[in-house]
């Protein structure tokens, strides 16, 4: 091969590789975007059925129930309330009356089945999504501070 052809081949190869990679990346990106909805939005059926999304708000006081490794609780933005079911161990900072973010899907019975429950490791911390939900519901935003995230579930 002449040097010119060689260079073209190398450039062509790189362009092809980057093209394939980009297609791959964008495709995976598209299908893994997790959107956030507040309890009011979920209650008014704005949230997609059969697709994973995040639900944020406050854990309603007195709503936590345990049955072996299954737990259920209510997430509220003070306007609407959504029942959540989760199997596994809740993060250390999960508390009634505190902010929480759950990732999962809404079942046909209207119960949000969480595959992951997130809480930030600081008692004053309000997860951004939970804060957002309260703000949308017209509540004053609460104090936030940046610390390390702790997740539970898989």
């Amino acid at each position, binding site marked *: 091969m002449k040097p010119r052809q060689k260079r073209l081949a190398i450039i062509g190869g790189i362009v092809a590789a980057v093209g394939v990679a980009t297609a791959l990346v964008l495709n995976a990106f598209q299908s893994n975007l997790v959107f956030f909805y507040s309890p009011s939005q979920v209650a008014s059926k704005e949230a997609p059925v059969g697709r994973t999304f995040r639900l944020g708000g406050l854990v309603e006081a007195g709503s936590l129930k345990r049955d072996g*490794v299954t737990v259920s609780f209510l997430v509220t933005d003070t306007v609407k309330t959504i029942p959540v079911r989760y199997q596994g161990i809740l993060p250390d900072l999960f508390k009634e009356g505190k902010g929480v973010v759950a990732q999962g899907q809404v079942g046909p019975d209207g119960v949000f089945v969480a595959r992951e429950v997130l809480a930030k490791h600081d008692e004053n911390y309000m997860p951004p*999504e939970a804060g957002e939900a309260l703000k949308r519901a017209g509540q004053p935003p609460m104090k936030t501070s940046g610390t390390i995230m702790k997740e539970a579930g898989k």
Partner: protein
Amino acid sequence: MIPELGQLSLLLALAVAAILGTLPIIGAAQGKPQWTSLARPAAQTLFLLVGFAFVCLAASFVRNDFSVLYVATNSNSALPLQYRIAGVWGGHEGSLLLWLMMLCVWMLAVSQFSKHLPAPVVARILGVMGLIGAGFLLFMLTTSNPFERLFPVPMDGNDLNPLLQDPGMVVHPPMLYMGYVGFSVAFSFAVAALLGGNLDATWARWTRPWTTAAWCFLTVGIMLGSIWAYYVLGWGGWWFWDPVENASFMPWLAGTALIHSLAVTEKRGAFKSWTVLLAIVAFSLSLLGTFLVRSGVLSSVHAFATDPGRGLFILGFLVVVIGGSLVLYAWRAPSIGLGSRFGLVSRETMLLMNNVLFVVAMLSVLLGTLYPLALDAMGMGKISVGPPYFATVFVPLMVPVIFLVGIGPLARWKQAELPELAKRLRWAAGITVVAALLTGWLMGHVTAGATMGFLMAFWVLTSIATDIWERVRPSGGVHGGILARVRLLPRAMVGMFVAHLGVAAFAFGVSMVNTYEVERDVKMAVGDSTEVSGYTFFFAGLKNVDGPNYDAVRGLVEVSRNGRKVEELHPEKRIYRVQRNPMTEAAIDPGFTRDLYVSLGEPVEGGAWIVRVYVKPFVDWIWGGCLLMALGGALAASDRRYRVKQKQESASTIASSGAQA
């Protein structure tokens, strides 16, 4: 008094950094030796000043001086001494000081080990590092002063975040920052070369050991973070694709590409402009990583709004450093030239493919990390990018990388032949397939994912064995036994083998854990037992324990296998007294072939607990692989030829200056 001295020291440091960042660079441009000669003493003074400020902050922590706001926020009188010292880098302000401290350590090292370099080059390198330092000092003094006083003085401090009260957290940030900041040497050298318009093989040879050293620190830093997440976060994962982790992973990916392209630039003079660009990118990502993690934008982009000064400064600084160096690059790079030519099939091409893949991987992580932030900042809604995205993107990108790890080192520079390579590697390929299938079969079931992983691990292993064998096997005409020849292998090459072996160990560990781990959350009362992967976990008891600054419930779990006792595990649930935060302290029995992992979830009715019981096969190989990579890097960076060259060159400069005298 001590905090004021620290503050004063930082102010003086800013003045020195400003001098270091201007006069030597101007001196180098205008050929004024008396200005360029300022660089070394200024860098050393800067080190002393920042070092003194650092000691002052540490002293305030040790003395429990809660009149200092930062100490009051991040410490407590009941905090054990080692965590009070680690508290120095437990928050935003202190981490900036640590970052600056590390920059000064690297600067001091550069000023010490650059005797053989021409004075204008040293002046430019230290000058650029000085400018970066000045930027950080300005940022600290104007928006994030660690020595700010608090009045009225509180009775006691707010305590260090319990998650950070861990030996791993004492060493993780310094290691990580040593790595981040280490890339500033390659960056400064690249900018210096662009300013001077002189980029030759010396540039690459000199930059290489520094970059590799920085990369080693970064590798160990990321590894420590991963281990910490594994046992402190209490649910046994080792990597979460969390933005905080991604922030440190992006510079690592760019750095990995950089050390490989530097090899080509040094050995063959090719990829020059590309290597310079990578040096700029690697350091820019380090800066981005530091700010992403430390500014609070990750938890909320609106953190900027609560403190607009900080946010604007950070953005401005990033724009100046990254934008400025890229503009300089665009202006000067055409004069660097592309370097020498190479064949379509050659080691250069394979390393080029390595670089393309690593950069694409880095960009995909960047997309997944920044996109949600950008969307949120523009008020277009809150989204997050799930870990499956990263997994789907990463595996297909890394498979060809690992295939190349096998053939790249065996391919000749300039021109290689594919059929010849295939012939040399036929045994390696055969053994790889058999070994991968055999391993899956021995583990009980063969899956596509695990087999892929095993193929990669064994492929790297067998191709390294082929490479070494070809170099040491007895052949006519050369004397000495195999061992003698093994000893003759250059240290840099041994380093490469060790690092690549680390890749194999890593891939093996990951495939094992991902496919064959068993995780079980069970409800257990004292006296109950459960069986996981052939191990019996017996919940033998619970007792209350008092720690130095926490109260805990400690469980006793006896593990046995086939009736024989293996280990006693003591998982804890702690409540730290000051912040009243609960913390899960997992108990782990580490092993060469498996970890046994038990952590207490939460108490339920009737004195029972939800307990996590995990058996993780070969999980320690993941971190062992990282250690091997870092060790390989350390071996390569300490290769004799870097030192011999320097000695010879310094000897010849002395000789020539002697002749002049």
